[in-house]
C-alpha cells in the first residue's frame, strides 16, 4: 500500500508534506481496529479495494446494464436523459462548464476560490496545509486514517472576509466532478463574517462501481461566518458509505448541516460541530430513508466548548421493506461552557413489519448552567392519523404520503427547493409501495 500512496502523491504532483501526511496516516490505519459500534463492517476486504484510478481510465458501463429500477427512479424524478446517463455511470460527456462560467467569474472577482482539491493542493498549498485533516483528526478512527492516506478528489472553497454568496455552490454540477469520487476531500474555509451555502451530491441514484466510499468534509467557520452544508446522498445499493463531516465554529459563527441519506447499502454518517467560540451556533438536520437491504446508521455530534453556544439536532428516519435505520448521536457540553443550549429531537417511522429502527442518543454534560433537551419518538403510522385524513376524502396511499411528508417536513423544507421537490416525489413513491 505504501507504494500505491507514493504513486498517488506523485501522479498529483503533491508537495512533500502531503506525502508525509499520507504515509503517517497509513501507519495509523494499519494499527487501528474497526469501529466497535453500528453496522458490521467485517466484510470489507481492504486488499481488494481499488484506492486510486486516474480519471481517464475510469471505466464506463453501457446503458443497457443500468438496473431497470434505477432507470425507473430517474424517470420518476424527472431527470433529463443526458444527466441520467452520467448519474448511472455510463459516463457520457456532461458539459456544465458553459452554464456556470459567468457565475464562476463573478466569484473570482470577489476573491472566492472554488476549485477541485487536486487543483487547490498545487495552487494554494499554504492555504490548505494548516487546515487539512485538522477538524477531523487522522486518528479519529480507522476510516479517517484510511481517508487521509488515500484521499483524492473533492472540492476546495475559500471565502474571504465579509464575502457573502447568495447562490448555493454545487460541486457536483459546477465542477463537473465525475461521480463524486471515492475518497474525496472537501475543505471549506469561511473567513470572518462570510457566508456560504454548499450543496453536495444529488438526489438521483448515483451509480458507483466502488463498494467503499470514505469522503471527508472539513468546514472552518470563522468569527461571525455562516455556512450551510447540504448533502443529498443517493449512492447505488452496493456501496458502503462511511463519510465523515466536521465543522469547527468560532465565536458567533453559525454552521448548519442538512443531510438526506437515501442510497447506499450501509451508511455510517454523524456530522459533527465543535462549537469552539462563545456564542457559536449549529443546527443539524438529517433525514434517512432505508429501503430493502439498507442499513443507515446516521446521527450527529455537537461539542460545546464555548459559552452561550447553542446546538440543535433534528433527525428523522424512515425504514420500510425490512430496511434498518439507527440514530446515533452525542451532545457533549464541557465544564465551563456556561449557558450552553442543546436540543435533540430524533424520530423514526417504521413502515412494514420487518423494518427496524434504533436510537442511541448520548449526552455528556459537565456543566450545570445549561439547558439540554432530548426527545425521541419511534413508531408506525398511527391508524388514527391515517383514518382522520381518509375521512377528509384522501385515499390510504394519499394519506400515507401526506403523513410521511409531514414527518420529514422539518428537514425537507430546509433542503434546496429542487431537491425538496424530488424527495417529496420519492416519498410518494414510498407511500405507494409500502406494505403497511
Amino acid at each position: 500500500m505504501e507504494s500505491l500512496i507514493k504513486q498517488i502523491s506523485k501522479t498529483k504532483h503533491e508537495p512533500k508534506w502531503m506525502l508525509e501526511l499520507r504515509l503517517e496516516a497509513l501507519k495509523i490505519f494499519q494499527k487501528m481496529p474497526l469501529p466497535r459500534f453500528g453496522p458490521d463492517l467485517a466484510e470489507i476486504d481492504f486488499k481488494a479495494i481499488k484506492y486510486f484510478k486516474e480519471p481517464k481510465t475510469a471505466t464506463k458501463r453501457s446503458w443497457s446494464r443500468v438496473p431497470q429500477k434505477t432507470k425507473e427512479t430517474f424517470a420518476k424524478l424527472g431527470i433529463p436523459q443526458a444527466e441520467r446517463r452520467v448519474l448511472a455511470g455510463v459516463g457520457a460527456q456532461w458539459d456544465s462548464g458553459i452554464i456556470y462560467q459567468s457565475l464562476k467569474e463573478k466569484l473570482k472577482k470577489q476573491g472566492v476560490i472554488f476549485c477541485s482539491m487536486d487543483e487547490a493542493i498545487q495552487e494554494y498549498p499554504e492555504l490548505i496545509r494548516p487546515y487539512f485533516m485538522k477538524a477531523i483528526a487522522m486518528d479519529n478512527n480507522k476510516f479517517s486514517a484510511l481517508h487521509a492516506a488515500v484521499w483524492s478528489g473533492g472540492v476546495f472553497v475559500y471565502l474571504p472576509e465579509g464575502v457573502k454568496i447568495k447562490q448555493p455552490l454545487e460541486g457536483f454540477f459546477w465542477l463537473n466532478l465525475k461521480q463524486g469520487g471515492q475518497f474525496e476531500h472537501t475543505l471549506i474555509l469561511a473567513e470572518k463574517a462570510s457566508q456560504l451555502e454548499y450543496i453536495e451530491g444529488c438526489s438521483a441514484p448515483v451509480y458507483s462501481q466502488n463498494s467503499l466510499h470514505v469522503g471527508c468534509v472539513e468546514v472552518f467557520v470563522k468569527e461571525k461566518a455562516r455556512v450551510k452544508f447540504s448533502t443529498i446522498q443517493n449512492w447505488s445499493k452496493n456501496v458502503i458509505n462511511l463519510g465523515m463531516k466536521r465543522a469547527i465554529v468560532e465565536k458567533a459563527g453559525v454552521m448548519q448541516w442538512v443531510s438526506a441519506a437515501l442510497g447506499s447499502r450501509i451508511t455510517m454518517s454523524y456530522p459533527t460541530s465543535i462549537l469552539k467560540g462563545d456564542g457559536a451556533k449549529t443546527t443539524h438536520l438529517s433525514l434517512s430513508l432505508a429501503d430493502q437491504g439498507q442499513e443507515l446508521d446516521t446521527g450527529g455530534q455537537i461539542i460545546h466548548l464555548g459559552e452561550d453556544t447553542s446546538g440543535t439536532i433534528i433527525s428523522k428516519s424512515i425504514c420500510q421493506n425490512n430496511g434498518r435505520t439507527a440514530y446515533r448521536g452525542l451532545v457533549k457540553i464541557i465544564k465551563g461552557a456556561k449557558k450552553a443550549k442543546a436540543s435533540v429531537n430524533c424520530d423514526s417511522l417504521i413502515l412494514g413489519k420487518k423494518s427496524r429502527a434504533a436510537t442511541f442518543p448520548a449526552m455528556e454534560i459537565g456543566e450545570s448552567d445549561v439547558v439540554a433537551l432530548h426527545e425521541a419518538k419511534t413508531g408506525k403510522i398511527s391508524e388514527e392519523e391515517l383514518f382522520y385524513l381518509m375521512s377528509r376524502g384522501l385515499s390510504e396511499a394519499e394519506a400515507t404520503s401526506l403523513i410521511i411528508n409531514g414527518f420529514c417536513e422539518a428537514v425537507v423544507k430546509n433542503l434546496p427547493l429542487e431537491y425538496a421537490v424530488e424527495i417529496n416525489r420519492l416519498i410518494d413513491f414510498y407511500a405507494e409501495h409500502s406494505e403497511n
Partner: protein
Amino acid sequence: MSLKIQNLQVKAQNKLIIKGVSLEIKPGEIVALMGPNGSGKSSLANALAGNPIYKIIGGKASMDGKNLLNLKPHERVKAGLFLAWQNPIAVSGVSVESLLRMAVLNCRQRRCRTVCAFREELEREAVKLKINKSWLNRGINVGFSGGEKKKLELLQLLLLKPKYAVLDEIDSGLDIDSLKLLAKIRQPEQGILLITHYTRVFKYLKPSKVLVMKQGRIAASGGRELIKKIEKDGYGKFN
C-alpha cells in the same frame, strides 16, 4: 333521497356496541342524536365514516340510495358524507392548507383550480369563522385548543360542502358566537346528524327529530318536546 341507516349493528374489539340502530336524515333536515357518555353515538358516527376499528356485522346504511358500507372511507367522503370529529386528530407536518387542498381536489367535481384560487377561497371561508390566517400554515390540529380544533372542523365542513354531515359533539368547546356562526353558515340543503350531550346548541340549530341513544340502542325518539324532557330529567328515565 336521504341518509338512511337500518338496523345497523357494529362491533369494536369484539364487543357489540351498536345493537341495531335505524334512523333517516333527509336533505336539509337536522336530526339530533343525544345520549349519555358511552352510549354509542360516536361509534355510530365512526362506523358511518368507515373507521376500520368498527366492524359492521349487520344492517344497512345508504346515502341517496347508494350503499355506503361497501365504499372505502374516502369514497364515502367523495359521495358526499362528512364527519366532524369529536376529538380531531393532530397530524404534525401536515398543514391545514395542504390537507384541505388535497381534500377539495378529491371531493369536488370542478377540478381545474389553481393553488392561488384555492388559497383565496380558503381564506374567505376562514374569515367567516374568525379563523386567523396564520392557522392555515400550521399542522392540522397541532397545538390548537379544543375550541380551535372544532373551528377547523367547521372550516373543513365549509370547504367540502357535503350533502350530509355528521357533527360529533361539535358544540363542546365552541363558544356561543361560533355556535351562532355554525347556524349561519350551514347550507340549507345539507342534512345533519347532530350528536350532542347538551341542549344549548338547539337554540341555534333546530332539529326536526330528536333521538336518544342508550347502550347501543335508540331508547327514545320524538320531536323537540324530547329536549325539554331531557333538560328536566336527564337521561336516567329512558330505557
